[in-house]
């Protein structure tokens, strides 16, 4: 009985898929009429997706027909030759107008002369409050508010009372980072590094989650942001190294001499590659997730260009897939924050590993060799 119903379900599903594909194949004939009515240029999915995950000087929330709801953000420029310039990005009029000798070229601010050509002699430093900066500052404010309110609760009621209210949500996460990330990797020195690990974890988590909201900026998918986080982790790791660590880098133990010589440059490079991997891992995971969601939504418009019926008919499928990917992305947001923190803790732990651990390991290695 169960087998029959599954088979009939499969038959129904395949028929539905074939029906949808069949209509889109016929719909190509009606394409020109729709193009004439729409009157706009062809939908370039690649460009639209890249525009949505890139940074921008204005915050575009939505467009209803011809009206665009955007928030122009302040542009802050400093040039050694021209001095400080602060103005709203609405003066650029989407790259058509030159303002104060600066022009917006593909979301990039370039200094120009009066006639509009690029002025090579002027160097400009762009400190603008772009979309990513505003969202990051919002995340910082929320992080400070949440954490100080939880800390104040502890100061008021004491650390031995059961947590109440919002503490209930934050405390398990903090104890998770302390007991499963910091203590196993850092041993008895975990208290020194716990503030940094907690900050990194919650900062990446809040920025990941904010980036998932439709209309928000893609902060953690910006390679400059993740590069800076990786650089800070790199500095923390470097400051916790001891002589033992460097001895192992320049004279790797437990391998024959030719392998030692090969390993020395590899070990030297690994000091830089480990934080670089942290940077690329977070950036690629977040950007790839956003691109997948945007691609599923773009599919509606790609089908809609063939015919409006195909566009509308494909929308439920596309929205269902997008919701599914959104749920996975929430999981990925937590996992990536955890992985960044965990790997930073692992690398810090590797940096100040003590001598007695290695003697034990050497003892095990020699006994295994026999």
């Amino acid at each position, binding site marked *: 009985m169960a087998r029959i119903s599954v088979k009939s379900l499969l038959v129904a599903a395949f028929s539905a898929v074939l029906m949808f594909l069949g209509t889109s194949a016929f719909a190509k004939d009606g394409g020109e009429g729709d193009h004439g009515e729409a009157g706009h240029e062809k939908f370039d999915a690649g460009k639209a997706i890249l525009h949505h995950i890139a940074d921008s000087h204005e915050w575009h929330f939505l467009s209803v027909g011809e009206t665009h709801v955007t928030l122009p953000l302040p542009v802050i420029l400093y040039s050694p030759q021209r001095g400080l310039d602060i103005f709203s990005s609405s003066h650029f009029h989407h790259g058509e107008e030159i303002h104060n000798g600066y022009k917006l070229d593909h979301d990039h601010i370039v200094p120009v002369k009066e006639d509009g050509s690029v002025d090579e002699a002027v160097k400009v430093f762009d400190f603008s409050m772009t979309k990513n900066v505003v969202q990051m500052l919002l995340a910082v404010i929320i992080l400070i508010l949440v954490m100080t309110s939880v800390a104040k609760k502890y100061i008021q009621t004491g650390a031995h009372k059961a947590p109440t209210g919002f503490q209930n949500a934050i405390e398990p996460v903090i104890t998770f980072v302390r007991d499963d990330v910091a203590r196993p990797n850092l041993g008895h020195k975990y208290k020194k590094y716990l503030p940094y690990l907690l900050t990194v974890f919650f900062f990446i988590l809040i920025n990941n989650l904010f980036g998932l909201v439709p209309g928000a900026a893609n902060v953690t998918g910006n390679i400059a942001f993740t590069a800076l986080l990786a650089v800070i982790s790199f500095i923390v790791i470097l400051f916790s190294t001891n002589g033992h660590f460097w001895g192992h880098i320049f004279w790797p133990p437990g391998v024959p001499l030719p392998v030692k010589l090969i390993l020395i440059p590899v070990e030297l490079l690994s000091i830089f590659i480990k934080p670089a991997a942290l940077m*690329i*891992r977070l950036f690629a*995971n977040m950007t*790839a997730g956003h*691109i997948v969601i945007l691609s599923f939504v773009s599919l509606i418009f790609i089908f809609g260009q063939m015919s409006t019926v195909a566009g509308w008919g494909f929308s439920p499928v596309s929205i269902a897939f997008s919701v599914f990917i959104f749920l996975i992305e929430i999981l990925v947001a937590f*996992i990536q924050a955890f*992985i960044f923190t965990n*790997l930073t803790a*692992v690398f810090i732990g590797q940096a100040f590993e003590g001598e007695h651990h290695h003697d034990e390991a050497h003892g095990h290695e020699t006994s295994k060799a026999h």
Partner: protein
Amino acid sequence: MNILLEVGQAQLGGAIGAGLAAIGAGIGIGQIGKGAVESIARQPEAANDIRGNMILTAAFIEGVALFAVIAGLLAVLTTG
């Protein structure tokens, strides 16, 4: 005409590269999952430790696969 051919080849290479990276990541993480689940079956008390190590190692492999995805994306999207 030649320029069009080169752009097409670059995009083909990028797409195939990203697909191969997905196969590699799938095989790698599948083997981690297999090892982890078998270990938990042998010793259920160690499930928490094993799960932590499994997620950590899977993240390493996923990082490598995403290096390849980024390379593929660069090949597809930067034309010329």
